[in-house]
């Protein structure tokens, strides 16, 4: 075989890959040992990691993720989380690792805690992608060999997400174990005027929700456009703040489950209508939307008696649901704090 460009190129590629993170980008090239040094930044070096057995040769996380086609980018994002550069490399001696360990944070300690951190990153990633997460996704991409601890890991990750980011992990489909991250922080509109940099499409969303609500909880596409046109938003015309409106309302907001966009039964040529999506129901309320509609029209909710009544009824139901949830959480919290009290007496905490 003549030695030529091809083999030279391949050699160069191999050399480059050898230097690279195995999960550098997308296709997790699993078997490459990492040779890099970690300079100034506080990259976590832990030696006490039993999870990836060096004996098997390849860190299992990378192998699995490399094969899952549909979740390729997802997997890469997750598998690239390196905690244990020392343990992952077959026979790579890392004197640096022990040095760094002394200076790092004392939490997370065990492998479960590290999985909790990975899951937090993974859920944030999915939140950013606006994609729901299934239990299967989590098991495959993050939990892996710790599947017996999946609920514990998920619970701890949820706590962190709630405490630190104000995001709630909500199960949206118990049959398929599908979860979504919901913004716990109330959507507020008082500060709107001075800050149109913040999620500008929220104004459009509220408007559409308003149209849907005031048209009896279901609005035709024509009715929605009538209102959006008045605001200067037209299908097919790119808007400086929110992009192309049709894509925003019929696709993006639907994908994010704020709206539902369905064909009117038996319509030919097909006509469509909008409904509130489950996420809108979770994150805002009829009263809030009515307040928005009223404000925009320079008036108050009571100026729309039938809608105001409906909104008030809705508020009542929500208040009752919140009270019930609080009772549940309080019960859970006391269980949790008892568990924590007992676990903090374990010896390996500093």
């Amino acid at each position: 075989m003549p030695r030529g460009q091809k083999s030279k190129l391949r050699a160069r590629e191999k050399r480059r890959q050898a230097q690279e993170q195995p999960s550098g980008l997308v296709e997790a090239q699993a078997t490459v040992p990492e040779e890099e040094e970690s300079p100034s930044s506080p990259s976590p070096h832990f030696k006490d990691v039993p999870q990836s057995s060096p004996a098997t040769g390849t860190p299992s996380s990378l192998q699995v993720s490399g094969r899952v086609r549909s979740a390729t980018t997802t997997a890469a994002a997750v598998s690239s989380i390196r905690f244990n550069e020392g343990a992952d490399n077959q026979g790579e001696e890392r004197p640096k690792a022990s040095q760094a360990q002394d200076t790092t944070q004392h939490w997370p300690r065990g492998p479960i805690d590290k999985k909790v951190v990975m899951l937090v990153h993974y859920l944030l990633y999915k939140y950013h992608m606006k994609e729901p997460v299934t239990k299967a996704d989590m098991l495959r991409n993050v939990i892996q060999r710790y599947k017996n601890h999946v609920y514990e890991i998920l619970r701890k990750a949820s706590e962190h997400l709630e405490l630190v980011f104000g995001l709630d992990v909500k199960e949206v489909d118990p049959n398929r174990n599908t979860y979504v991250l919901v913004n716990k922080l109330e959507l507020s509109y008082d500060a709107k005027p001075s800050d149109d940099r913040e999620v500008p499409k929220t104004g459009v969303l509220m408007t559409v929700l308003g149209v849907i609500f005031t048209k009896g909880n279901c609005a035709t596409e024509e009715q929605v456009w009538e209102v959006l046109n008045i605001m200067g938003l037209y299908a097919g015309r790119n808007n400086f703040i929110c992009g192309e409106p049709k894509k925003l309302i019929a696709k993006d907001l639907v994908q994010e489950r704020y709206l539902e966009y369905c064909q009117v039964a038996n319509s030919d040529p097909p006509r469509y209508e909008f409904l509130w999506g489950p996420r809108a129901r979770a994150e805002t309320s009829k009263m809030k939307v009515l307040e928005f509609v009223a404000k925009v029209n320079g008036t108050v909710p009571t100026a729309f008696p039938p809608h105001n009544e409906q909104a008030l009824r809705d508020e009542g139901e929500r208040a009752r649901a919140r009270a019930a949830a609080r009772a549940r959480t309080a019960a859970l919290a006391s269980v949790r704090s008892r568990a924590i009290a007992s676990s903090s007496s374990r010896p390996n905490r500093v």
Partner: protein
Amino acid sequence: MQGSTRRMGVMTDVHRRFLQLLMTHGVLEEWDVQRLQKHCYKVHDRSATVDKLEDFINNINSVLESLYIEIKKGVTEDDGRPIYALVNLATTSISKMASDFAENELDLFRKALELIIDSETGFASSTNILNLVDQLKGKKMRKKEAEHVLQKFVQNKWLIEKEGEFTLHGRAILEMEQYIRETYPDAVKVCTICHSLLIQGQSCETCGIRMHLPCVAKYFQSNSEPRCPHCNDYWPHEIPDVFDPEKEREAGISKSNKRSLRSRQH
């Protein structure tokens, strides 16, 4: 967070909202970050006094530390503007971008990144990048497509374009510095003054040491006869001005006034 030995800050809805919004934007300039902070206070805790930004961020970082996430502050290489981004410390690859781009697009970025790092000026020409389109992993990409993808990178603040050439946006440097230093240890350049990764900068023509433009600005600030800190030879380049946030704010206020006139009652 139980069991942590470090004294941790307290998170309130103000901080959480701030984190959420910073996450959404990806990277923000300091002035925007200050506005963002004020907005969060206004929304969630009107009565409280607004913390000094540095303390506010340190507080949040102390809580984020155990999650291997950090709000990192950096400085743009061309004009020294302070920028902030939420960075995932446990990740050392380009995974942050993975959520927005396809496999072949990510590979295009990686090719551009390599060219940028290998270059003398820190810039890679559009032509050179596009010539590598055949080597990309994943779905086949045509040059025309690749041009659009490069623009997407610019829009998403991973690359900056100047006259047909591309370099790394401050955001990319903040997020990927560790990855870059580990992946290209021989090719990376480092600033003599701040010791951080250097993509764009000035170099001494005699001894070859390099400095970021804002580092040059600070180092030679009131010096009428700038000399290389290493070999003492005359520094041959134009010394840029030090970034002045006050001037920035004035410019920003006039910009936002224009914008609020345009914005609609949504």
